[in-house]
């Protein structure tokens, strides 16, 4: 184990996988000479050269298409979105090419591509750069969607994503790059996709949250423990495929659930998880599933309004108390 930042953990995962498999290469805006807008690809150009660390023009649709083509021909591209908000420009390549190629080619072409970069609300990045982009992707059959909350998860899940033979959307977070944590240095350490984790054990209510919301929920859980409410915090880590077994297992234990998501709530991850819970665990519920979501509005630039739009600790605590009838 070594203590490192989330950013360093991602860098280590890329390095290890590029050393392990010569087909793995990195491509994106400023990933080479500039070493990444958020320095995730630091030192890669020096170690692996410009054939495997490719700087591209500012043209998401174009270079994502190049990545899909390279994957069809047997390479394993890791395409960086400087922020995931820019992936909207590449939606056609991701949704219509990467996600459907295996199906439409009758199984002839699988697309082992990873598209990664930061997403979700950060700090005053305003309306166009603060979106929880996962909602655009987990709806699409053929895509796997990962949201790793800790440095260890970032490393273990990125390695699994790179080794996966199908397209994986891997969304990090600007606000988590500097978070430090213990990370296994073993180059064989991976975390399987589709495996949730219980971050904190509790008995009264299951709170489901990932990324920044997971950390916020953790703080709330500690505060509510003083009131005698025991929160179990589950981090899904992979949104698709979803580890419903772990989620439902926890709800069966606590009989109550609160789902938190940073993005606007309509048809969001909270809706999906709430629906899953009532389908699978209806008879175990002692209260309706509560959702705490971002407000239905573009992200304001003003700091005070930004705070109002995202789920606050107070809102999370209120939802937990509500389902606990406390």
């Amino acid at each position, binding site marked *: 184990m070594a203590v490192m930042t989330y950013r360093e953990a991602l860098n280590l995962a890329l390095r290890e996988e590029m050393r392990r498999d010569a087909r793995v290469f990195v491509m994106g805006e400023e990933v080479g000479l500039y070493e990444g807008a958020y320095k995730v690809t630091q030192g890669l150009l020096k170690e692996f050269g410009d054939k495997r660390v490719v700087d591209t023009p500012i043209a998401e649709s174009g270079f994502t298409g190049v990545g899909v083509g390279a994957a069809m021909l047997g390479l394993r591209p890791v395409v960086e979105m400087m922020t995931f908000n820019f992936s909207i420009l590449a939606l056609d390549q991701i949704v219509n090419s990467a996600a459907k190629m295996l199906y439409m080619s009758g199984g002839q072409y699988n697309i082992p591509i990873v598209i990664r970069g930061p997403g979700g609300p950060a700090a005053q990045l305003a309306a166009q750069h603060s979106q929880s982009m996962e909602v655009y992707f987990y709806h699409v059959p053929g895509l796997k969607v990962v949201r790793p909350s800790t440095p260890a998860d970032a490393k273990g899940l990125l390695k699994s994503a790179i080794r996966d033979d199908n397209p994986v959307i891997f969304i990090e977070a600007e606000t988590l790059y500097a978070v430090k944590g213990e990370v296994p240095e073993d180059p064989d350490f991976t975390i399987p996709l589709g495996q949730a984790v219980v971050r904190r054990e509790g008995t009264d209510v299951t709170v489901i949250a990932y990324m920044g919301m997971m950390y916020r929920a953790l703080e709330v859980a500690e505060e509510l423990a003083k009131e005698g409410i025991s929160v179990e915090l589950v981090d899904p880590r992979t949104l698709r495929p979803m580890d419903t077994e772990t989620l439902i297992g926890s709800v069966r234990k606590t009989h109550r659930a609160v789902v938190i998501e940073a993005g606007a709530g309509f048809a969001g991850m909270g809706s999906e998880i709430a629906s899953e819970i009532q389908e699978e665990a209806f008879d*175990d519920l*002692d*209260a309706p599933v509560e959702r705490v979501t971002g407000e239905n509005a573009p992200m304001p630039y003003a700091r005070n309004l930004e705070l109002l739009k995202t789920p606050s600790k107070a809102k999370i605590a209120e939802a937990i108390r509500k389902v606990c*009838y406390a």
Partner: protein
Amino acid sequence: MITKVLMPKLSEAMETGKVIKWLKKEGDPVKGGDVIAEIETDKANVEIEAFGSGALRKIIVDAGGQVPVGELIAIIADPADDISAVSAAPQKPAAPAAAPAAPAPAAPGAASTAAPPLPAMETYQSTPATSRVVPMTPSIAPAAAPATRRVKASPLAKKIAAQGGVDLRLVQGSGPGGRIVRRDVEAALSAPRPAPAAAPAPAAAVAAPRPAFVVPPRPGAEFEDMALSPMRAAIAKQMPLSKAPVPHFYVTSEIAMDRAWELRSELNALEGQPRVSVTDMVIKACALALLKNPGVNASFRSDPQGAAIRVHHRAHIGIAVALEQGLITPVLRDVDVKPLSQIAAEWRDLAERARAQKLRVQELSGATFSISNLGMFDVDEFSAIINPPEGAILAVGAVVEKPVVQDGEIRVGRRMKVTLSCDHRVMDGATGARFLQDLKRLLEEPLRLLL
């Protein structure tokens, strides 16, 4: 919006109610479902919930005040609403004491601009189920089953209740809008089970340490007049309404309880089952005998258009519970279809809450038959007064060991005497006798109670 809080009509016989205490102060915010006050009726103390939302703007009847049903006791309104018109309105005449749905009698003063008195239930409910308390009074078709109201409970609460044999209709929900949630069912399940109130064996009674027999000192005054408690007043008023107009007759039977006694011991040796008392077995046996003898499960109905006998197709049995200040008769519903274990659990819960005066109104009305058991006071036999509109009541004595003759030999047996008081307008001696015959058979072949 302005919501008038009226003295709710919480039972058929209730004419006045006393505000015991307000649980909200003037100015406190109130939302629908909040418990705002405790009301003392002739039968029980009842918490009442707010119907409208806003703030408790004005308390008209202070704690301790007693007013007729339908009287304005408080006003709930938004802080911005002008309530002067409402609070200054002349006191409305009390709602009629009869069925709440009946129109108010047109008192001369009521023709003014003041709103006609609302039936209490439209404004208030003591619990979600209370507004369905009155199925016995209105002249509806005899076959009509008591209206049941959907019980709001979380899926988990329903599951636990089903597993534990808890009747959710008897559980008070603590969740939003009265939703029954897990903790409510668990509380009902873990409520301490009182020792069986029914007919303890005389032998056991001897074995238990007996309290010292102390005659209290003689007071100085020659006598004192005690004010009637609301419950005593209700009894004093209701009983002559039974004994005088209802022509009572009595039939008595002695039942061999040996096998029932053994069965009860066996049942109580089973792990994880509620303890079954003799009363529980008598309740179950009565329910079955009532279904077989519908003539006993019947009420006489005087009606200007012509009297009728209402035959009940459900066995809702009231069981008298002695209290310090009188007695109260909680009702076990649909006893005929409930297993003995459930009857035991529900009856225990009802009796316990009866002693704590925490019964809800709908648990006190709607009986089609009653049982009074004085066995625990070593009473051999007695006769009870019918509780109108029911047609009969069974008085149960103690189970005693005594010499009995069997196959020409004298041996020791356990016997229990029961006396059925019958309304002669509804049934005749043979009707009551056949009921007792069936009751005797059920208790003497008690496995039938388990079928």
